[in-house]
């Protein structure tokens, strides 16, 4: 492990922690603009986190230790995930610890804990939310894996840094299979991050909410951690998308100075990505929960076709 590696690893985690709420704020702002509403401040997320951290955390009487531990576990998972996804540099000491498959496992781990915690209290909403969350999860994970495999097939590696290095620094080639993977990935990320066609992040309507139902019982610093983890998850997904489909502008192993230069590129790419997300959310309507399996099945199919296209005869 070189010093520059350590530096870029730490920088990357710090950037993730700091930028994640900003990304959420940016998406909300774009959404408000597109919907002709007056936009909330970009800093709103930070202020909310600060407010929540200062508040007392109320926990239900019958809550088990699991309920208290869950926010920390979830937050830890997401922070680790943002650590192993290459955003600024491919020289990450943590990356050998977890490849693309382990990354999906990390997300699944967090999902299991938040669902268990939601059922822990025994309220109806929590259980319902947990059920729906698991439904989405078990459909979305295989699709995400297939997307990552499409990229792995091209680059002959399941390590995320390996994939990015090959894609970004190899000879530029148009991969048709990545077009399918890209569409599939977009669908999966919308579902995983509780965005509009699947879930509405700004609603608390009993019958439709999924993600919000899970965290109804949390308050104070627990809620703050979970909200922050949510932002981190969206940040992580955006970075996976950027790493797979737009990997250019990232620093290489032997160019530590470039890590700093990669930062503005990343911010620029994220800004565009966030605006596109807001656009998708504005133009599509939320679908009924029964349609979600179909939505995710589509994503899975597309990812599989992407892999098939890779094996196109004669190509």
């Amino acid at each position: 492990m070189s010093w520059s590696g350590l530096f870029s690893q730490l920088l990357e985690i710090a950037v993730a922690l700091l930028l994640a709420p900003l990304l959420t704020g940016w998406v909300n702002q774009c959404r408000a603009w597109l919907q002709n509403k007056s936009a909330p401040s970009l800093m709103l997320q930070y202020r909310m986190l600060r407010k929540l951290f200062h508040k007392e955390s109320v926990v239900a009487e019958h809550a088990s230790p699991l309920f208290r531990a869950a926010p920390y576990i979830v937050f830890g998972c997401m922070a680790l995930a943002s650590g192993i996804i290459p955003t600024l540099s491919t020289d990450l000491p943590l990356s050998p610890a977890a490849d693309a498959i382990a990354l999906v496992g990390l997300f699944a781990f967090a999902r299991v804990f938040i669902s268990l915690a939601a059922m822990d209290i025994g309220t109806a909403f929590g259980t319902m939310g947990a059920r729906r969350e698991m439904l989405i999860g078990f459909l979305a994970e295989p699709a995400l894996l297939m997307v990552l495999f499409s990229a792995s097939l091209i680059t002959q590696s399941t390590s995320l840094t390996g994939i990015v290095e090959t894609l970004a620094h190899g000879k530029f080639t148009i991969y048709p299979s990545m077009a399918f993977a890209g569409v599939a990935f977009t669908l999966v990320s919308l579902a995983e991050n509780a965005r509009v066609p699947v879930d509405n992040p700004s609603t608390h309507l009993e019958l439709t909410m999924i993600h919000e139902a899970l965290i109804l019982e949390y308050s104070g610093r627990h809620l703050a951690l979970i909200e922050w983890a949510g932002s981190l998850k969206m940040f992580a997904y955006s970075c996976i998308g950027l790493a797979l489909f737009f990997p250019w502008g990232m620093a290489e192993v032997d160019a530590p100075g470039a890590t700093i230069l990669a930062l503005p590129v990343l911010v620029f790419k994220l800004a565009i990505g966030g605006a596109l997300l807001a656009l998708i959310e504005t133009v599509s309507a939320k679908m009924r929960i029964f349609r979600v399996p179909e939505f995710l099945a589509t994503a899975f199919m597309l990812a599989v076709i992407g892999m098939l296209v890779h094996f196109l005869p004669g190509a």
Partner: protein
Amino acid sequence: MMMQAYLIQSINLFASALLLLSFAMLSQRRILTLIHLFTLQGAALVAATVVVAYVTDQHHLYYSAAITLVTKVFVIPLLLHRLIDRLNIKWDVETLINIPTTMLIGILLVVFAFNLALPIVKLSSSIAHSTLGIALACVLLSFMMMITRAKAVPQVIGFLSMENGLFFAATAATYGMPMVVEFGIAFDVLVGVFILGVFMFQIREQFDSLDIRHLEKLKDD
């Protein structure tokens, strides 16, 4: 040389877009979106044909691209739009099999088509020969769309999208058919769409619906 490589890769990309759009059409419930997707598919076809024409310097392919552009991207979608406006249907696409099952069968069809294309691909020396499997897959997928849709308009769109797949197969394998034949095919397709449009009015007049499940009275008994 570098440029050439990118152009050939972009043919593959457009081919994949065709396949992607075929799948999108297979999973689409709304008629209006279906027509948009069909238009897009036509556009992807035109783009692929133009690139093939440019790379191989086959001038007649420019003409066939132009024919496709006029018929598949402008005239036919326009006719379809006017048709659904006048018939006042926008939402009504019903499938006979649920969509995830359809998609699953669709994947099997793609695998089958790729295997079917293997001996042909070996024979063809065209620069786009690797996309033949995709063309066959598009044909089979549209075929399935025709089978699984209960309404008249989606069936027709399935038929037209099958024609797209066939056209692409011709471009990919042999740089298109002779000009006379392509004109003939385009003419037949146009006339066919026109006749079907007239038919739909009459079917609705007779049955008060465009559900072709009404069209099952004639049985062998």
